[in-house]
Every structure is written in C-alpha cells, then in structure tokens.
C-alpha cells in the first residue's frame, strides 16, 4: 500500500465523523496551546533575566563584605561584618593584573532638593569607573571626574527621573542640588535605561564615593564591582581579590565573591527548571487529549468492524490495517497540534498587546516539541485500538453488520 493512499484512506474515514474530529482536535489543541503558552512565558522570563544580568557586563565580579559560609545565612545587606570593606581595600585590588576597572559602591537614601522641590531618592557613591563597569551612558554633560577616590568633590550625576522631577523644562547642568545638608553641582544627566535588575538608574543620584561616605558618615563600602580584563582572567582575578583582601583583613577570609556567569547560570538553571515544570504540568492536558484519541479510535474500530473484515478479505495485511488506524490517530493529533499552535500564538499575541514591555518569545524547539509530543501521544494511545483492528478475526468481523 502506498503512503499517499494510506493518507487518503485515513482522511476520507476521518471526514465522515466531523463532530468527533472537532472534539478531539479541540482537546488536543487546548493541550498544545497551554504547553506552548506556558513554555513561551517561562522561556521569555528566563531570557529576560539572563539578558538583564548580561547587560551588567560580561566579566563582572561583585565583592560583598561578609561570607555566607561563615555566617550561615545571606550576606548582610549593609556592612555588619567583622571587618568592613573600605576604600583602601578597593584601591588595593588595583594591584591585580587581571582587573580592568574597579567601582566601589556606597548606597543610601537621602532627600534631594532644589529650589523648594524635594524628593527622597537613592544616592549611590562611586568612582569614574562605575560608568565602564555598569555600561552607563550619558544624555548630557559628563560623568564623575577621574580623580583620587578619597577626594570629596561636590559634584553629582543625576538620573532621568530626577532631572524631569526637579529640573522640569530647565537646564540641569551647572545647577546646585542639595542632598541632606550638602550641596552638589550637577555635571551630568544619565541616559534613560529603564529598570535593570531592580536598580533604577533613572531615579538615582551618583556622587563621588568619598562624598557619599561623608554624607552617610561611614567608612565601609556596600560592595565593590570589579571588571576583569577577560573571561579567563576573571577566575584568576577572583583568586587574587580573595588573596589581597585576606592579607588586608588579618588573614580572615571574610568576603563573598559573586561572578557574573555564576549568577546568570543560577538564574538560567532555576528558570529552565521552572519552565520545564510548568510545561510538564500543562502536558497533563495532552495526556488527557491522548486518552480521548484512544477513545475515539476504539469507537472507530468497533463501528467499522465489518469494514475491517472486508479489508482483510480483500487482502489487507495486519500491518496495513495497523498503519491505517495509526495514521488516522496521527492525523487527528497533528490537526489538533497545528490548531493548538495557532491558538497558542494568538494567546501570545494577545498577551503581548496587554504587556508590550515583556518580551514574549516562543522558542522553535517548543513548537517542534509540541508537534512531536502530539504525534507521540497519538501513536501511543492509538496503537491499542489499531492493534485490535489488525488482529481481528476476519470471519467474525465480516459477520458483523
């Protein structure tokens, strides 16, 4: 029997039962649609977060005071460690050959005001290298000057939101900005970046790190961002940072180092697992659809018993009958899968119009997997009825009317 004839025979058989076909296609397409939509959501979330982290810079090492292993918990947010990280620690790191740039970071919240307008915002103290490490770009003016990090220059760079709120329709450059009780001259405005892992650079004022230390009356640093010269150099840099700080902290290994790729990998792993979990829950509906396929095929085989007997008399081999019924099941499933993909695509388009900011992406492997799973379900659940047809005794089958 030719393949095209098998397809044709199965197709004409399916055509005679439109309602049954519609139901099975509906069930299958709901399963496939839910799998594709949930996979797309999970996958998009993964890509979103991974991209966010990669936007931080590719060879980034984050130095945190404190050590998870020694405290047994999360690294403390603010320096409650035996030994604080200081500016001197940060500067000492520059001795490593593998380090391209260092940005010590100090963070605090303070009221920012100018001419009667006031706003509570995040103040970040850092150095000129922050711009390189975090890939910041400027809309106007310039970034912090390259000077000794111990110098408390009274200059600041403001984010887009601050500019719009405090200097609406005015030139911000050159103006004075009051932070707490100190005055800073605005020398630059950051280009708008939107959210970046929860850090909103638009609603932020960047001042020299020494000024921030004076402002918040502290000697310690929140963390140090280090950019390694290369991907390979990053691991050597990690070892050297650990050695340098250990030497400076009386032999105490009391810092935590987070590398860019470990963060990305962790999130990647978590979200991939999440996507797979969600997709497998959704695929339960595929199994239900598969059982429906089996049910419909049983009915089909039972109803067409005398036809099966006839085909046997006409010389249909058991294998041909098996394939005829399997092809029917496969056709139903593939039709369901295709309409399910269409349904899923529509749902994604609808979601995209509701949430235009969230990048929705249906990976090609998910499409292929959905089709393959539908086909597999059809073959697994269709094989029992098809075998029944193939094994039928021709004499009894023919006597059924």
């Amino acid at each position, binding site marked *: 029997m*030719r393949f095209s004839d098998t397809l044709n025979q199965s197709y004409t*058989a399916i055509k005679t039962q439109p309602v049954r076909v519609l139901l099975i296609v509906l069930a299958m397409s709901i399963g496939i649609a839910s799998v594709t939509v949930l996979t797309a959501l999970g996958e998009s979330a993964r890509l979103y977060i991974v991209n966010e982290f990669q936007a931080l810079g590719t060879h980034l090492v984050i130095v945190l005071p404190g050590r998870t292993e020694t405290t047994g918990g999360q690294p403390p947010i603010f320096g409650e460690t035996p030994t604080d990280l200081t500016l001197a620690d940060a500067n000492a790191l520059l001795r490593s050959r593998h380090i391209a740039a260092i940005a010590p970071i100090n963070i605090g919240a303070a009221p920012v005001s100018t001419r009667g307008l006031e706003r509570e915002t995040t103040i970040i103290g850092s150095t000129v290298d922050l711009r390189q490490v975090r890939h910041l770009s400027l809309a106007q003016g310039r970034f912090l000057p390259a000077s000794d990090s111990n110098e408390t220059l009274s200059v600041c760079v403001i984010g887009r939101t601050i500019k719009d709120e405090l200097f609406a329709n005015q030139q911000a450059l050159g103006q004075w900005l009051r932070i707490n009780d100190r005055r800073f001259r605005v020398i630059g405005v950051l280009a708008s970046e939107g959210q970046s892992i929860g850090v909103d650079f638009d609603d932020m004022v960047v001042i020299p790190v020494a000024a921030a230390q004076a402002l918040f009356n502290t000697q310690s640093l929140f963390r140090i961002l280090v950019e390694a010269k290369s991907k390979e150099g990053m691991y050597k840099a990690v070892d050297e940072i650990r050695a340098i700080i250990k030497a400076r902290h009386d032999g105490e290994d009391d810092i935590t180092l987070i590398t860019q790729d470990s963060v990305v990998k962790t999130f990647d792993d978590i979200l991939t697992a999440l996507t797979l979990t969600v997709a497998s829950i959704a695929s339960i509906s595929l199994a239900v659809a598969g059982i429906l396929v089996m049910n419909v095929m049983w009915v089909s085989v039972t109803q067409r018993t005398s036809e099966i007997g006839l085909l046997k008399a*006409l010389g249909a*081999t*058991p294998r041909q009958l098996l394939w005829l019924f399997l092809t029917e099941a496969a056709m139903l499933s593939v039709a369901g899968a295709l309409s399910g993909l269409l349904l899923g695509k529509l749902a994604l388009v609808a979601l995209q119009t509701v949430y235009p900011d969230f990048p929705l992406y249906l990976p090609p492997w998910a499409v292929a997997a959905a089709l393959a799973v539908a086909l597999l379900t059809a073959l697994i659940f269709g094989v029992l009825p098809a075998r029944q047809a193939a094994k039928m005794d021709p*004499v009894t089958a023919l006597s059924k009317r």
Partner: protein
Amino acid sequence: MIKLEHIHRYFQVGEQRIHALNDINLTIKQGEYVSIMGPSGSGKSTLLNVIALLDQPSSGRYLLNDQDVTQLNDEQLARVRRENIGFVFQFFHLIPRLSAAENIEMPMVLAGIAAKERKQRVAEVLKAVSLADRAGHRPDQLSGGQMQRVAIARAMIMRPGLLLADEPTGNLDSQSGREIIELLEDLNQQDMTLLMITHDESIGQRAERCIRIIDGQVS
C-alpha cells in the same frame, strides 16, 4: 487448483465442541463451476471460509495452486488472498463512504498499484458490469443489483483465479439475481474458477458440479 485433504474444523461454543467440518476431501480444477449447497448450520460457510483463507482448519492439508497454505502466517495469507481470491458476499460489503469506483479500486490500493493504472482498470471493469455511468455514486445511491455488480467488479479487479460467492443472490429480487448469476457465469467462461454457496436449488443446479454438505461432511 484447490485440494483439500482430511480437513477438520472444530469450534468451541461454551462447553460444547462443534465439529463443523468433518474430514473434507475435495479437489476443484482451474475453471470449474461448483456450487455448494446444504441446510443452514451444515458447515458450508465454514468450508467457504477455509477455502477463502479467512479461517484456518483445525487439521488437514489445503493446497491452493500447489502451495500448502495451512503453514502461512497472517501477512502471507493476506497477500495470497489479495492475488488469488475474489469475494462476492450476500450483503455486498461495500464501504459506505466510498464511491463505486473507489470501492472497486480498494484491492489495488492495498496491493500498492499506481493510481494511473488503477483508474484505467476500474474503468474497464465498470464497463464489464455495465455500471460506467455509476462510477461516482456511493452505495446508498445504488440499487441492490447495482451494489452486487460493484462487488463483482471489485472481486474481478485483481484478476484472481478463484471467485468465491456466498449467497450472491440472497438479498436480491429474482430479476437482478438472474443478472448477477449470468455475470458470474460469464466470468467463469473466462476461465475463472467459480465457487458459489446458495440455498436456491435452481441456481445450484446450473453449476457443472454440485457439492452437498450435511453435518460437516460431503454427501
């Protein structure tokens, strides 16, 4: 062509063991016209099913064209049926969703013959059973006599050596019944072996040879 040696066939019905065929010995030559008669339950249908390779005898030897077909598996049996045996049934057994031409085409579809050749051969046999103008009709649009002619066309499409007819006129009025018998006898004239089960004495007597079966034995 057909050689049956000591064929027995038992059926288990509940506790009871039914001896449907009891030591059947039968030889039918190529081109013969044989009718099988007997009361219902006599085993004539079982005999036909065994000859048709739809049923396997419990014991005995069956040679079809000098080939021992009792040793073949299901796949091989299907192939032998397809190439050597044409069927005509009492209840026509046409596939309701297919047109007359598609029904006739079915054995060739199963045999994997190319569509072009199929079309040509279907046109030929439709003409032979004078149904050329009914090719596109579905079975429910045909009369009983026409349906049986479609079934005969389907039986002869593979040009088998053996034509088996199980009460071919059982569901027809006498007029169309006679036409069907004439059509079958025509095919027999073209050297096709014709084996026919019938209740009808007048039809049975037309055959060159009449085999009577009573209680599973040739009498």
